[in-house]
């Protein structure tokens, strides 16, 4: 068992260094969109950060073990291959127990975040979105308005109802971290509470034929007073 006395601290140190470096690198790169423009975006970002931390840790431990193995257990190291079947059961059990805990932990955390993300089904504003090859039509039945871009009031919960007249499309707003398919023959819904005033991109995230690449639009988040004024007036 002299292997383990050297191996465990070496692999542990290597894994710690790798974890540190990777976390630094990923912070610098910043994988998610820079704008956190909705209540939902904050939830998704925290879920993403949590999974990323676990991933980096698992990745570092496995890679550290691999590096150690490749460095120290080479054919030219002079010794014959040694093996014993006795520690197998223990290692197997520990590994399985560890992966079960990790998996169920992730699943529980994911379920909780999902319920938070889903939020309640009550809304202050109703927006209807009709997707057609290859553009988006927005309408606000309560105001009888059909602006060229989607307009949402900051801090209010919006219900976005989606439908399609032709093929599948998906309304994707990366700044909100939300996405929902639009299907012909039925209405799907999306709930969002925008938190940050600004203009954000809408893209189509379901392959919808020829000009799928160009099927984009804009969502404008404005203060509630401005929202009322613009939808009641003609300034859209």
């Amino acid at each position, binding site marked *: 068992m002299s292997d383990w006395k050297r191996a465990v601290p070496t692999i542990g140190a290597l894994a710690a260094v790798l974890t540190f470096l990777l976390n630094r690198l990923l912070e610098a790169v910043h994988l998610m969109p820079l704008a956190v423009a909705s209540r939902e975006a904050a939830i998704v970002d925290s879920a993403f950060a949590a999974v990323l931390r676990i991933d980096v840790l698992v990745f570092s431990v496995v890679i550290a073990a691999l590096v150690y193995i490749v460095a120290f257990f080479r054919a030219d190291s002079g010794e014959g291959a040694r*093996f014993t079947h006795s520690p197998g059961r223990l290692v197997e059990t520990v*590994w399985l127990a560890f992966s079960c805990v990790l998996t169920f932990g992730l699943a529980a955390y994911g379920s909780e975040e999902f319920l938070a993300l889903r939020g309640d089904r009550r809304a202050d504003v109703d927006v209807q979105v009709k997707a057609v090859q290859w553009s988006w039509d927005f309408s606000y039945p309560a105001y009888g308005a059909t602006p060229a871009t989607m307009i949402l009031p900051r801090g209010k919960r919006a219900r976005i109802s989606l439908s399609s007249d032709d093929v599948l499309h998906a309304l994707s707003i990366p700044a909100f971290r939300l996405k929902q398919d639009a299907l012909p023959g039925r209405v799907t819904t999306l709930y969002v509470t925008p938190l940050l005033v600004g203009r954000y991109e809408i893209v189509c995230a379901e392959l919808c034929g020829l000009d799928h690449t160009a099927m984009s639009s804009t969502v404008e988040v404005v203060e509630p007073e401005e929202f009322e004024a613009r939808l009641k007036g003609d300034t859209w």
Partner: protein
Amino acid sequence: MSDLLRALAAFAVLTAGGGWALGFLVPLEAGITSAYLAGLLAFLWLAGGGRAMLDWVDGAHTEHAAADWTRFVRFTLDHKVIGVQYLAVSMVVLVVAGLMALIMRAELAAPGLQFLSHDRYNSVMTMHGIGMIVVALTAIVGGLGNYVVPLTIGARDMAFPRLNALSFWILPPAVLLLLAALANGSMDTGWRAYPPLAVRGDWGKLLFLLAFITAGFSSIFGGVNTLTTVWTMRAKGMTLRRMPIFAWSMLAAGIIMVMATSVVAASLIMTVSDRALGTAFFDAAGGGTALLYQHLFWFYSHPAVYIMILPAFGVILEILPVFSRKPLFGYGLAAGSFLGIVVLSFLVWAHHIFTSGMWDFLKIPFMILTELISIPTGVVFLCALGTMWAGKLRLRAPMLWTLGFLVHFLVGGLTGIFLADVPTDIHLHNTLFVTAHFHFTIVGGTIFAFFAGFYYWFPKISGRMLGEGLAKAHFWLFALGFNAVFLPLFYVGARGVPRHTADYPPEFAVPQLVASVGAFAAAFGVLAFFVNIWRSARSGPAAAADPWQAKTLEWTVSSPPPPENFAREPEVSETPYSYGEA
């Protein structure tokens, strides 16, 4: 050779001409479908299936084809020849679909449109997708599987040699039909062919669907054969516990091939029916629903990734003991995990469609079940690390690719958690993050394992060794190029750029350019691979029966093995992993 040419001519004339002529009598697509079925049958009959069938009717023995190279272009029942034929077809498709990837990466090297239209981009992308799916499903399973499985379990051939020939010979017409699909109309659906898009547009899409169905049947036949072969044809004394782990993985994959592929075939046939017969399975206006297709499709297509990856697990766990000089660690656990993956693979399909419009609370069980798969998959890593631990590693080409598999598949698996987790998936779904993730699992997993297995078994198949220098060049160019393509795409995708698009915002110019350069580097790696095979065929040193000092049965016979494999039926009295005593 002349059989093959005659068969191809009959196929082309009947399918094209017959489709055109029938189009005057019945709806065009119904005509094309019927003509294609006739063309396919004529092709099979003329390619040599007719003779084999008549021999069978007469109770006569179908002779093995001649011993020279022409046997590889003939209809034969020999599993070793069929294995090589599968390898050849999958490598041709790899090159074609790989060129499609290069065209896409050249287009995406800079923002804006360079030389493709949206239309052409969509077509190239669809062909790359379906082509690589064919490669991932046939290179290991059809190629290495056909060649190695009977040898490694001590059998003379597959359980059903005629079925084996059938499952191979319907593949080339399917590949030709796929290429022909480009001739008419744009292929703008991607390989998944979701209706309603797949039901709209010109008959090129019909050819695509028919080709997909044909390839599906090829896979079903292959699955039945593999399953039966491993279950019933093992040598005397080879109990389940003494079975090589690659055979275990093929057994597991065979179960999925039989049980899942028929479901995708059904959904594709329903799509063809919507097009050709005017039914409305997926048409909301006629009372159908587009979402039904996605459920049926992923009920197959998620298990399908395990048809790709289980044999890959088998390959690397077969190679590791040989190049570590140690018994396989956790053999029983690994075999059990394969079966666990088979069961779980059927219970996770809806994680592909979290944003498609399914009931909200159904997402939770699918998330949990999906994450459960990480437990049996993690076992493969445990077995790999445990096998290498305190071993005497020989870093030859097969081992290098195996280590590459472990690193890249680890990234593929870990990034999958973001897509199983509902909150993060809603943001990441259908972005380039998904593209990067599945390339890390399928290329980083299946293709790395395929190359590992290819370098490992090539001496057995050809009787010649491959050059180690070119193998290393292949590995490093491919591995570095591959990472250069897909690591940046994780970033671009997480920032919200959707996939399936011919363009992207200018702020992502740098990572996209890196990805394009990486693709060409990886392509040069593949070029080194083919140069290596060509040089080995011309002047490679002869391979001994057992060049790697391995202990499974295929290494007990000459390289290449004689017809019918074993002069005397082998008898097995221990596991094939008894290394390390010396």
